[in-house]
């Protein structure tokens, strides 16, 4: 059964794209067939994989079922990882979705025919809470939420959990969080991580992604960590995160 994992947070700049790319790569490295859909109009995941952020026919045709998604896929530099690239038109995805029947099911309809070819589908989602995010919630088995250990991030996590519980139809995705861009030297970071881990029960994964320069270098190298710093602290942390996440999918 294909598992759909959406990297999601209402806030931007929390490490969604880095996590999506590195986790997808880690899964492919284990022999799984993986698809990454770059839903963010900024196209950062596409950029990191050196693939032009362009989709023939744009987002509107795709979500309306007028484009065959299989023809839009691009192979990455990993033989088992494919990308459905970003497109600048995704900035208007809400409008395009609004014009479809049952818009919250639109992304599921795109993924459906591809699912048999992949073991895992990762969605790199834009920040915000919108019609597109609701469609993500309907398509995903797991919402994987990167959290920077600050009081405000915690608040947004609570908002998200509340929203999904109250507004999203069943079957709802499971919400799992992990700490991202964490600085173990900061007392505040450590306290917040301890507090949330204690209160959120099993919803917070133990692996922590550090605030590391390697992660920033991904943008200049245009490669996942495995491509240039496979043994670094950050690469090891993503590896540990995938090992922890996979059995829970």
């Amino acid at each position, binding site marked *: 059964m294909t598992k759909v994992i959406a990297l999601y947070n209402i806030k931007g700049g929390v490490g969604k794209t880095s996590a999506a790319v590195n986790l997808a790569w880690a899964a492919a490295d284990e022999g799984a067939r993986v698809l990454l859909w770059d839903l963010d109009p900024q196209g950062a995941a596409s950029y990191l*994989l*050196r*693939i032009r952020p362009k989709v023939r026919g744009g987002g509107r045709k795709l979500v309306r079922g007028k484009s065959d998604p*299989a023809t839009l*896929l*691009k192979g990455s530099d990993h033989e088992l990882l494919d990308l459905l690239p970003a497109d600048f038109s995704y900035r208007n995805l809400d409008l395009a979705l609004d014009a479809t029947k049952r818009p919250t099911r639109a992304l599921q309809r795109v993924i459906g025919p591809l699912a048999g070819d992949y073991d895992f589908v990762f969605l790199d989602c834009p920040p915000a809470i919108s019609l597109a995010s609701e469609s993500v919630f309907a398509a995903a088995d797991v919402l994987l939420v990167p959290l920077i250990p600050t009081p405000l991030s915690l608040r947004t996590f609570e908002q998200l959990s509340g929203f999904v519980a109250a507004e999203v139809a069943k079957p709802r995705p499971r919400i799992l969080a992990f700490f991202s861009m964490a600085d173990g030297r900061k007392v505040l970071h450590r306290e917040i991580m301890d507090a949330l881990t204690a209160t959120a029960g099993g919803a917070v994964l133990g692996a922590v992604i550090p605030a590391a320069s390697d992660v920033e270098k991904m943008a200049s190298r245009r490669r996942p960590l495995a491509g240039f710093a496979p043994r670094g602290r950050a690469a090891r942390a993503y590896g540990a995160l995938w090992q922890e996440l996979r059995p829970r999918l």
Partner: protein
Amino acid sequence: MDVRATSLLLPDGVTASAAAGRLAALVAVAAQRAHSVDRTYWDTFDGRLHRAGRALAQTADRLVLMDAATHAEQASAEHRAAARRLLVGDLPPGALRERLAPIVAMRALTPLARVRSRLLPIDVLDDLGKIVVRLRVEEPAVVPRGDGKLALRPRLHVRGVRGFDDDFDRVLAILTSQAGLREAPRAVLDDAISALGGTVGGTPSKLRITLDPGQRADAAAVTILRRLLDVIEANTPGALADVDSEFLHDLRVAVRRSRALQRELRGVFAPEPLGFYRDGFRELQALTGATRDLDVQLLEFGDLAGGLGDGAGADVAPLRRLLERRLVAERGRMVAGLRSARTRALLAGWREFLDGLGDAPEDDRPDAARPIADVAAERIGTVYRRMVKMGRAIGDDSPHEALHDLRKKGKELRYLLEFFSSLYPPQVVRPMVATLKDLQDVLGRFQDREVQADLLRALGDEIAAMGGGAAALMAMGVLVERLAEQQAEARAQFAASFAQFAAKPQRRIVAETFG
């Protein structure tokens, strides 16, 4: 969603690094580090993976299913090398097992050849530095049992990347037109098997014989019977070693087909030596029958016991043990018989007899020199009409034997159509085979359920004496009842299947074509 791929032969004497150097002058490439890979290729005896265009390779710790020509990986699993044979059911659940199961089915995989290759991966990059075509120079050498190795033709595997088809076309055009490389006519594995003196593509038991309508009937019979004897001999070692149940099955089918032809074309042989060989083949068939019946019982045991529902499935465990015990005993008897001087002499004598038939006197072989198309048509027409007559005589009160006899005749007709289909128009043969197959399915189910139920009844006393025998006996009672129901269902379907087979338009076509 496989990506495009092909394999090109490199000119003799071109090393991997020289090839990489030449490529770098033609396209933007990044060569990776060369490495060696030691692969043992596996396939079924009848070459099912080869026919499906796949290759299955065992490396140190992985079993990899790939495209045979391009080596594009399709599925893999962690796996340590099996000793001599591997069944799909032995593999862990996952993509590899799912992909292999429909191709390989119940056949065992056995090792074919060990190939050690030096691989040099070279990536073709676009202006963003992204890989758009993957090239792999392979310098393979086959490793025979014992020492040494034999170098095989080096080649360049070219594999596209999804969504970058234009780059694949561009690179392939450069490699073929500018570098003058040609597509490899055969996969590395096929080269390896040839170098070892083996048969590329395995040993299928299918006949695939094309005859000339004007050919002498005795020559045509010899062609078919020789091929059947090849199948018997090719499958004997696997049947003796019990590599999988299909060896014995294919051996038995070839014996049965031989017997059908001995009987149906008896006019091309002198009666006396033929009588001797017909007796010998009948004994050979009987020698292998009990083992095959038990093989089938055990192959179908899961389905049979599964139908019993929760709990009761476990109750029949003593039955399974008993069947396995019986199989061991029967197999021992069969192996001794197949290995006996008598069987060896029978098969060697039969081959000698076939080889000499062309020169034998024709006084008592009235059909020998007639065109095969005439003789075969007569036989097909006669057997068909005989079946129609037998089937029409079957009513609701007819004994089971009447249906069993009709099935036997049906097998003969089926074999005649298989042997001689190349002599007649496909539009005549195909519908005839289709309606015959339907009828045979119904008759086969009718008889098989009876055989299974009889076997269960015969085992009752022995089961009762075993530990857990009482529960097993009760479960077997349910099984026998279920088999009787299925037999009754098949009986009810007979009239409709037979009506199709013996329908007027079909009878007319048979009369027009076969006389």
